[in-house]
């Protein structure tokens, strides 16, 4: 499944479109601690987290994630939004808990 297909699917609400619609999502990845995410997130994964700040965006760029899905109703704060826009990172949000959200995507891949 590509990022564009995930956008069109509407299971998660789009917060920022990073313009990387052609990227093929490899797998879901769930973690909130940035140093773990940095070393364990694989390229083109969809990262599920409750941390909606600019550091999440920075790690996502460095780890080459396909997109971020903020769970549990977490919001992307304003500096995070600015960074996502500037660095072209696709971000979604959902009210669902991390496991349920990641499982939903997993079943679509």
């Amino acid at each position, binding site marked *: 499944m590509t990022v564009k297909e995930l956008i069109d699917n509407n299971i998660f609400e789009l917060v920022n479109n990073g313009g990387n619609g052609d990227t093929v999502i490899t797998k879901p990845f769930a973690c909130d601690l940035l*140093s773990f995410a940095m070393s364990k997130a694989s390229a083109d994964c969809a990262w599920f987290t409750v941390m909606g700040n600019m550091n999440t965006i*920075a790690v996502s760029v460095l780890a080459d994630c396909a997109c971020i899905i903020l769970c549990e109703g977490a919001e992307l704060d304003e500096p995070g939004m600015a960074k996502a826009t500037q660095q072209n990172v696709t971000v979604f949000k959902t009210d669902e808990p991390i496991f349920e959200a990641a499982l939903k995507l997993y079943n679509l891949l």
Partner: protein
Amino acid sequence: MYDAIKLTYNVSGDDFTRAGEASSDVKGKLKKMNVPPDAVRKVAISMYEGEINMVIHADGGQITVEITKDCITMILADKGPGIKDIDQAMQAGFSTAPDNIRTLGFGAGMGLPNMKKYSDEMKIETEIGVGTTVTMKVFI
């Protein structure tokens, strides 16, 4: 291939709006130079962790990156408080990060272990009250 390049970055302390910018910039440059993705990832991870440590623990500092055809050398120098016990600091899970930093997702105590794991060589020079210099190499 390409000529040797030297890049320098000033990292300001406690400024999360710019934290990670130096690492992102280096990553972008290495990609453009067609450095193998595996080496780019190793540099991105180890440099980001070092850069964040400078912001969180040492009130900023300076990063120098030297790129030659077979090696990327990162030198991260700060004038922070220094590290009291390097062996303890290197342990997975050890962190002195305050609560306000932990709520941002930092403080797992995995930064230095990641730097050690993802760089091919790492050296820490530190003196209490003077500062810390971390030198890391990634071979291409």
